[in-house]
């Protein structure tokens, strides 16, 4: 059995003045409320017409990432900082040059916490102002942040130069080594081809 008086207080009129005061207060507080709603009726709305007008997006907004690919050194700091492991990257190092294969963020998981941007030593991953992520397929939510793949033309030239230099150095080294090894080779001819093989792949 429920005692009705337990929670719904029986004297709900306890603090009220009385019958006439109720009538007056009901009317009066309604009028006061209507005064306020009327005031805003004549004020300019605060909302904006979204697709045409947009609210300003502050500089620090945490939206879809963008990557300054040239700066990135493939250090995995961002991927390590990510609580949900949504950053994956793949690249091939050519000495100092990087040949990018992929740098993707899985927006199925990403929660835009920006923890990935702070540890970056080169300050190259940022969260941008774009926020629209609507797609018809979840696969499309895995964004590739790379603006270009492989190597840039500049990098290729640089890499070619570096390789040329390296090859030249190797050649010089090999020549030196060959010069130094000549006396030894005479003594131990069997070991020379093995040493030559080990040195060959980086040069080729």
């Amino acid at each position, binding site marked *: 059995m429920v005692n009705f008086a337990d929670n719904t207080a029986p004297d709900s009129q306890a603090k009220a003045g009385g019958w006439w005061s109720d009538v007056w207060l009901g009317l009066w507080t309604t*009028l006061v409320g*209507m*005064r306020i*709603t009327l005031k*805003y*009726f*004549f004020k300019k*709305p*605060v*909302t904006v017409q979204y697709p045409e007008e947009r609210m300003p997006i502050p500089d620090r907004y945490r939206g879809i990432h963008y990557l300054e690919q040239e700066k990135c050194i493939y250090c995995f700091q961002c991927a390590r900082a990510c609580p949900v492991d949504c950053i994956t990257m793949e690249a091939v190092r050519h000495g100092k040059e990087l040949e990018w294969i992929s740098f993707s963020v899985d927006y199925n998981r990403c929660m835009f916490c920006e923890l990935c941007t702070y540890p970056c030593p080169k300050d190259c991953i940022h969260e941008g102002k774009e926020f629209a992520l609507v797609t018809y397929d979840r696969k499309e939510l895995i964004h590739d942040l790379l603006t270009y793949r492989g190597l840039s033309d500049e990098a290729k030239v640089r890499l070619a130069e570096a390789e040329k230099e390296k090859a030249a150095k190797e050649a010089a080294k090999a020549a030196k080594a060959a010069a130094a090894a000549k006396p030894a080779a005479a003594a131990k001819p069997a070991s020379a081809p093995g040493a030559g093989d080990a040195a060959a792949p980086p040069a080729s």
Partner: protein
Amino acid sequence: MSASLALSLWLQSARLQQQTGAALGSTTAPDSNWTLDLLEWVRTSWLSTKLAGLAGMDQAPALPTWAAAAIGAGIAVGIVIGFVSVVAMFSIWLERRVAGRIQSRIGPNRVGPFGLLQSLADGVKLLLKEDIIPSGADRKLFVLAPALVMASALAMFAAVPMADGAGFTDINLGVLFIVGISALATIGVIMAGWSSNNKWALYGAMREAAQVVSYEVPLGISLLVPVIVGGTLELGAASRLQSGWGGSCWFLFQNPFVLPAFVLYFIAALAENKRAPFDLPESESELVAGFHTEYSGIRFSFFFLEEYAAMFLMSAVGTALFLGGWNFPGIDLLKGGWLIAAQLAVFVVKSMFLVLLMIWIRWTLPRMRVDQVMVMGYKYLTPLSLICVVGASVWEVWAAVPFHERPIWMQLFTPVLVFGVCAVLGAMLRKQAIESAAQPTTRSRIAPRAHAAAH
């Protein structure tokens, strides 16, 4: 049930035949049956004669009277449905726009100019939606309920006089008719709630039943006050009685007890129409959507339209009995069709003003609890409306003569009182606004910022 539907349709046909005939400015007497004229015109038209000639007849045969009347009723009902729909759709648009502005929003503004066609677009969308009937529902009642609700709104139109001489069916018990028919919607709501096989809907229906039963009492009693002042139950006649003072001698200004009665009527009408703060039957924060939880598509749109049509009708009754009906200062200067058009416009504008007031109140007040609604109906509105009836009667008996023969102070007393009350309330609200804004803030207590120089 079907009898009442048929009754309402017939009544409307009779009314509209007359109304439209007069509104079109025809010279025929208001009681001539224009739909029959129309049918006769079609019968004697060139095409009909040709077709009859093909059949070997001299002239197309006249329709039997019952068939002609039925076709006439059909046309009239079509017009009524059109008018009700337009009014309801406009009210919906008004509600949404006003709510938007009150809440610092814009409201619908995409479809048509100022979003006026939004309701139409919504209607089309609702029409195209899948018609869902819950598996456990009582199908017959479930289907019938929205129709019944809509029928009550349409039927109420039969007794609302919107312009003088435009030939309305001035039912001489118009007030009774309206009070009676307005309760018909309740049956539809209860049917909807019961047949939905949903506990929330059932709650909504039960609340509606209790609420309407309670508020019929103060509604009827407060409607008695203008009836006492005017001495008639006929809405058209009541409106005609308020045409003095160049169209500003409204019942509101004829007897000091009409103003409180009007306020009471308005509150009771809010409750009858399930409008906030009495929107318990569909209180969405408690009962999900109340009695129409399970309704969707076109059936839901019927409930929706009915709510706004009923709002307009209740406002129309309030206009006719309290606010002078079609009378407005200066309207007498017009003649003929212009007069009728102006009267229609005045009547609709006055009613829409009351609708606006209902909307304004809805977006201001919280909802009452079900027992509080009962308490308000029985303990507050009913005694107050009884006081009004007694007071109005005493005033009328004391005055003893028709309004225009009373002493001048007695004639002027009520208008002065009404405007005085409005002025005092306005002044008090202004004072309250100033006092509220003058409350201290924490700004003054804390020293200004020290870091300002840093930036």
